[in-house]
């Protein structure tokens, strides 16, 4: 079973977290200006890489904070975690 290092609480079992999907998607507040295709891209289209992937996680059974993690989807290892608003670190160790 995976553990995830919460930026605040430290290593915790994955059971305590909820996945929030791909990170760094920008929600456009003036979305009226976007075409249907652009909006659909934001809504529905997600990266699904084999390898490094920046993801959102929520520590629902802990400090209830959202944060980001870079996970290698192939080895299922977490390479880095960082707080919302922070840039994706150079994760690969």
């Amino acid at each position, binding site marked *: 079973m995976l553990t995830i290092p919460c930026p605040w609480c430290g290593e915790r079992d994955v059971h305590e977290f909820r996945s929030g999907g791909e990170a760094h998607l920008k929600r456009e507040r003036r979305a009226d200006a976007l075409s249907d295709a652009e909006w659909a891209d934001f*809504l529905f289209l997600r990266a699904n890489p084999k390898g490094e992937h920046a993801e959102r996680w929520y520590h629902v059974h802990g400090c209830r904070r959202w944060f980001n993690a870079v996970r290698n989807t192939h080895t299922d290892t977490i390479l880095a975690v960082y707080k919302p608003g922070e840039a994706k670190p150079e994760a690969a160790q």
Partner: protein
Amino acid sequence: MNQSHRLPAGGRIDRSRSLSFTFDGARYSGHPGDTLASALIANGVHLVGRSFKYHRPRGILTAGSEEPNALIQLGLGNRTEPNIRATQIELYDGLVAASQNRFPSLEFDLGAVNDTLSPLIPAGFYYKTFMWPQRGWMTYERAIRRMAGLGRAPDGPDPDRYEYRHAHCDVLVAGGGAAGLAAALAAGRAGARVIIADEQAEMGGWLLSEGETEISAKPAVDWVGKAVTELAGMENVTLLRRTTAFGYYDQNWLGLVERVTDHLGPYAADHLPRQRLWQVRAKQVVLATGAIERPLVFAQNDRPGIMLAASLRSYIARYGARPGKALVVFTNNDSGYRTALVAHQAGIGVTAIIDTRMGAVGPLPQAARAAGLRIYEGHAIIATSGRLRVDGVRLGKLAASGDRIEGSGFGISCDLVAMSGGWNPNVSLFSQSRGKLDFRAEDGVFVPGQSFQPLRSAGTCNGVLSTAECLAEGLAAGAEAAREAGFANRKPAGLKVTEPECPAAAPFWLAPPEKPLARAKCFVDFQNDVTAADLKLAVREGFQSVEHVKRYTTTGMGTDQGRTSNVNALAIVSATLGQDIPAVGTTTFRPPYTPTSFGAIAGRNIGALFDPVRRTPIHDWHAAHGAKFENVGQWVRAWYYPKPGEDMHAAVNREVKAARTGVGILDASTLGKIEVKGPDAAEFLNRVYTNSWLKLGIGKARYGLMLGEDGMVRDDGVTVRLGEDRFLMSTTTGNAATVMTSLEDYLQTEWPELKVYLTSVTEQYATLTINGPKSRELLAALTDDIDTGNEAFPHMSLREGNVAGVPARVIRISFTGELSYEINVRASQGKAVWEALMKAGEPFGITPYGTEAMHVLRAEKGFIIVGQETDGSMTPGDLGMDWIVSKVKPDFVGKRSLARSDTVREGRKQLVGLLTEDRKEVLEEGAHVVETVLDKPPMAMLGHVTSSYYSPNLERSIALAVLKGGRSLIGKTLSVPMPDKVIRVTVTEPVFFDPKGERANG
């Protein structure tokens, strides 16, 4: 005592006490320290089971958990358990065991006809034979399962307790033999938190069976005793006996199952669990899982009385049992000689040592020669005989190539055969941990290669063979693991070991049989009855991948996961393909290492502890007043309150009528409640709801609809403004947690600039809804500081004051279309206030109503329930709720999606009402609505019924439905086809009662 095959002395059994047990109804005795297998052997019982497919008589092959043959039905009644390895069952007084897979008896088994027919049922027989007709498989399978069965499962519930235990440690040591104990000592002495687990009752592993080995000039068992005592004395060490590390998962998370009371049988104390599932998170792991002796593959190598050589030593040295009187040893390496010498010293006649090699010169072969034992060099067993027990072997001289016999064979009588094909490192857990295996060609073994997780292997599981190497590797691994976990320590001092020298030897994969291979029955996988001929057949039939051969022949697919067979099978497949073993590859081991009971995996998550049952603060009142309950997620809510003689229909009709004519009272405490606080609270609500919130007055309430970013309705509820920067939001019961998660998401990640704090107060308040024309009078009767007048306290507003003497927030809102108040009081006061309302409501005929009546009342008004009228694909427009969507706000969650081509297209499903032609006919929720009825499906469907009830106020059935282009169908007559009839319905507006909404404002 009739332990005819017990040696006069020796062994780690307590001869001062006798234990009585039965096997297949016959009574036997043994001693504490015995396993069922050793006790049976001490009683001269070798035949313990019938094989899976051919029903061949089978005996005890091993002395450990790798046993493929001796699978036993243990215990009686609901405690009976099938397929337990006799080699792992510790004997207790009164133990009841039975053999499996035989009828009518073990000695005379009708299924044994399969053995005679075996040339007709080779590998793949079932696939080839039972394919046609396809549906026939259902019948065939039942018959095949009966024939090729293992034990039987109990019929009733398991009476035992099973528990979980989470644990953390610096170093987990899997295996308590020489290497494991040494590793635990080194790590423990360094101060690390250590857990050491061993599957046996006693720590020590093979050292318990090796009387000739000395450590520090004392018998090895003395060192074991000292090591265990030292470990037990360390506070930082947890010793787990009878505990199998069965699964190695991500990030050094291991599953262990501790058999807490299995060895006590009926004498187990009630308060103890039968088994305990340990979930261990280890910083470092030391695998010291030992090695498993490799059987030799030769003709009819499966008869009772043929066992692994080291296991025979174990029965002699550890259990003081004598498995036979006339022993033949068949070996390709020096450790076979060791067994012969041990047996010889124990007084067992050694008839012959058959060595596949020429000129073995090690100290053990020399000792055997010196002892005068008969040795056949360069020979192999080519056939065996004996119906229920081996009574002789035939051997022949191997050609130099090793794959055929020169000249003619000859026979030797015996009642016991010990075979030794070398040692396979037990790499199951290493493989589970995603480690890579390396092949070592000189002795044909897989050893741990690169590991994926923080672990190290030590001892025979790492490919070494001597006790000295095991101890040295164990000490080093334990010390290194502790160091890696942050515990500095010095290199441990070595231990001096005296032991017989047994170097590794070149492997010998298949002894050429006297008969043609196809009829020779050279077993590779004993548990699944797979022979060398089956493997070769599979290759001939085109299977090349070892994974395919495995599945086609079922080799290695028994409950033992091919512990004794995989490497032999792989070698035979490789040879047949003409490839090297590493090129063919190995199979992957998967958890569990040995079969693990469902009970241990379920733990205490059963019965009342299966899932939390959430009750409201007023629950006890409902229960005391005869309420029927329904589950709403984890909540249980009062469903309806039948009076004596009432069925559900009558009770709900009465409750619904009361709520429209007098006063009803509902426990709405499960609704989600979130306090929203901060200078940007109104702006925040403005962004997450579709309507406008900036101008909501303090003390006013507003209904809100929450969408997903995709424009689909996700939640709804009423929010009140408590102050300039403070709101109390309510959510649906089922979505309370989801909404909280989503709102925190927006605040923390999307709009961190907004100054808003959220706090869930769902459980702080009991919410009591009084509803109906008399509700104002009732409220007035119980408050002295709230003006309940229609003007003073209008619809959609909040007042704070005392109700029934306690502080309350009263919100005038309505989910029924009637005059209605939601009274929120502290949860601890909820029941008292409810009782006060019931008492004060007596003159008005107050009627408690449950969730069913609530649903009818809101459906009469056409009010949606999120999750019932919506399914994640309904927009506000689809629900006829465009009125709540702001046209002027520049942004709210879901806004852009409401303009997507798909959400604005014609023909979306829309909410409508349905009225049946027969007023009494209540539609089924989920029923499909069609325009044209055909003889049979498929028919073009317009949509489905989302809610359907009998409305006592309208004295007819009503239903809500979502239909394609529903609003344009209003007035039309459609059909609802049911299995036995077609129901005609008229499409209407979705509001059936008080369409102008006058009653709630009255």
